[in-house]
């Protein structure tokens, strides 16, 4: 699986994602069910860290965030 595929799966899949957008170093996702977010899975996919605040999930991936976000959007 590509990084984008792994991250998408660890966020609970396309159906769980309401919105995803890149900042310069992180993906900001709004999810349906935060319980489906697999933090170890995100880290295994290369995330430096995961910040959770309710349904808002920030996945810190470094400056490639915009590339990864557009790859994820292509998969959704």
């Amino acid at each position, binding site marked *: 699986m590509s990084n984008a595929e792994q991250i998408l799966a660890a966020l609970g899949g396309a159906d769980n994602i309401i919105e995803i957008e890149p900042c310069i170093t992180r993906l900001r996702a709004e999810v349906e069910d935060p319980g489906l977010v697999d933090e170890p899975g995100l880290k295994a996919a290369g995330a430096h*860290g995961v910040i959770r605040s309710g349904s808002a999930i920030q996945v810190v991936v470094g400056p490639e965030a915009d590339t990864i976000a557009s790859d994820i959007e292509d998969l959704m």
Partner: protein
Amino acid sequence: MSATGERPEGPAVTALTVLAPVAGRAMPLAEVPDPVFSAALVGPGVAVDPPRDKPAIAVSPVAGKIVKLHPHAYVVQTADGAGVLVHLGIDTVQLAGEGFELIAAEGAEVVAGEKIVGWDPAAVEAGGRSPVCPVVALDTSADALSDLRDSGELAAGDPLFTWSR
């Protein structure tokens, strides 16, 4: 202001001087009101809290190529691959570029101190966001940085820290 301290350099180590991209009060990255930057999740560095009295121009912290350029943040990478991230304010991605004026272009080669983005820290603050600017050394650890200026007033272009590579 104290005089510049000793700068010990080991053999075969390149010391990259990273400049303040904006003027303002230097502060430890740990005090930035954002959990990603304060925990150094993208890398170690220093933050600068800019004055609110007038619009400002953010400059390049190092000589290199602008590998990422968003209105509110940019990364300049040196020829040997050292990437420095400058983030203009916290949560400013939400402004979708409003209030930021790009002066340089992504992919451009710049010298240290070259103008990159015009912005207004007071307007960012008026919108309910912190205009504090994290300056982060990407893909490295805290022990690679020295001479950190994390207190006192700085001018844009003043040395902010040294990155041993």
